[in-house]
């Protein structure tokens, strides 16, 4: 309860700062939308010639991509921790975080929030509607609720992975090179995993479970019944992975060495 109140306080403050830099904000939103359009066009181009990839139609793949955009946007809005190592460990900003009476990870989420990323949610839903209407998908009354659960699960998977990697900074000095690599791997989750070989599929399901951000949950809405088990595991995998990452984070905090003055 208290955390929610603090969250809104920070969000309000964030918007206020944003409005003072109007031009900046507008440019950022435009560039955000632009990069999403480019991605979208790219998908259309790639799948223009081949209408099926191991049993997936072009519109299904577009649908998965659209779904992926939603948890990815939420992740992007709240977990800007790709520069955690430089910003908080090397520069010693973590000292300040640790002298405040709120969980350290939550404080970083609050400080680094980038709410304009949430526009990606709209783009994603738009893409899903486009692909969904072409596929003639029908939705029942409970589907929006399942959608929310799936999106939350996917967001937690994504965030969990990056929190886990950020936690390495507490032990090692230079994990920065891993971050971009994992970002790239994250992109694989937006394509049907059965187009990859077994090893990659296994990795994307159990080690770096990016598949739970895109394909698996989207498979539910596409009515792919053979994938339902995976689809419904999304919230479970999400919450357990995120919990694991928070535990690692908490252990990491006790190993924090601080930066010299």
């Amino acid at each position, binding site marked *: 309860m208290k955390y929610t109140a603090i969250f809104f306080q920070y969000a309000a*403050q964030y918007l206020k700062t944003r409005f003072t830099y109007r031009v900046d904000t507008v440019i950022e939103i435009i560039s955000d939308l632009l990069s999403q359009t480019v991605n979208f066009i790219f998908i259309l181009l790639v799948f223009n010639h081949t209408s099926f990839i191991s049993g997936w139609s072009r519109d299904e793949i577009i649908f998965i991509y659209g779904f992926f955009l939603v948890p990815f946007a939420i992740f992007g809005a709240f977990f800007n921790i790709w520069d955690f190592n430089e910003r908080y460990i090397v520069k*010693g900003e*973590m*000292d*300040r975080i640790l*002298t405040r009476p709120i969980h350290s990870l939550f404080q970083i989420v609050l400080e680094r929030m980038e709410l304009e990323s949430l526009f990606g949610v709209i783009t994603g839903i738009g893409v899903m509607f486009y692909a969904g209407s072409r596929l003639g998908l029908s939705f029942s009354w409970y589907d929006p609720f399942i959608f929310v659960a799936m999106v939350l699960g996917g967001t937690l998977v994504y965030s969990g992975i990056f929190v886990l990697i950020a936690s390495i900074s507490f032990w090692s000095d230079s994990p920065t090179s891993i971050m971009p690599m994992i970002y790239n791997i994250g992109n694989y989750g937006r394509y049907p995993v059965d187009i990859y070989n077994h090893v990659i599929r296994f990795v994307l399901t159990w080690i770096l479970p990016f598949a739970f951000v895109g394909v698996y949950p989207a498979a539910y809405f596409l009515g792919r019944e053979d994938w339902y088990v995976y689809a419904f595991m999304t919230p479970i995998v999400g919450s357990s992975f995120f919990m694991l990452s928070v535990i690692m984070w908490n252990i990491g905090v006790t190993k924090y*060495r601080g930066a010299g*003055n």
Partner: protein
Amino acid sequence: MIEVKELRKEFKSHSSRSGLKGAFRDLFTRNYKVVPAVNDISFTVKSGEMVGYIGENGAGKSTSIKMLTGILTPTSGMVKVNGMDPHKEREQFVRSIGVVFGQRSQLWWDIAVQESFRLLKKVYNVPDDVYNVHMNHVIESLDIAPLLDKPVRKLSLGQRMRCELAAALLHNPPLLFLDEPTIGLDVLVKLKIRAFLKEMNEKYNTTILLTTHDLTDIEALCERVIMLDKGKIIYDGKLVNLRSNWGEGKQIEFQFADLTMTKERLMPLLAEFEAVWTPGDRNNVWVANVRNDEQIISNVIGRVLAAYKIIDLKVHEMSIEDIIRNIYEEGITNG
């Protein structure tokens, strides 16, 4: 208030071998060295005390302060601050302390000072009525009312520091840690901050632990000092005792009319007084370091005046800074 027993913090650092060959060997086997930054220190601080925590760079000041504030986990030993274990109960604990790191801002860079205060008020969950009474007082004493609607990045260092101090005291903590609070500030701001800290200490009985390189801060504020060297406490006691134990000497500075005065010519004058001549900042300035004894002082002055013409004469008491420098150079031998 603060209770520390055999507190120790070790850092593991690997010492790299030299050269390319060495770097290559480092890839496989590393030489780890365990360095104790804080080496089994013990002390207690009572409620309402103002303690100066001093030491050279790398003496372990920052590390021990970080353990006291819950930022770092101790390797071994016991810390109890405000009845809590700072690291284990961190979120609860930090509500009872205020922290100012002189070289690091607690405030949000882009937003107005009062917005920062508002956020912190929410973070510390301070009720409105308590906040209003207390903060109005703080804002008035620090004279920061005109700064409240300016973003932090537009403030000067002195203005920012006063706002930092106000932010640290927003929840009126009984214990305040200040790490280099006056670094880089001009004299007026320093005086203002000192007066403010004194007032807080009198009004709320706030306990203050202060590290600084500026010993005049300590002289102005602290009755007690804890001195660290290489991770160990080398002195813990009253500041006045420090002066009476080690600061017994006087320095008599002569400026001679003769511009080519040499040590050899001065030496015979003070042969039986165990006095030492040290060169001053100019060629014709020499300082006699003597024991604090009226007989000796008058004798030295008399003899020098009888032998040579002088332009100027000054008698200095040894400053705390000199005393501390002596202690670091010679170690505590006569204590």
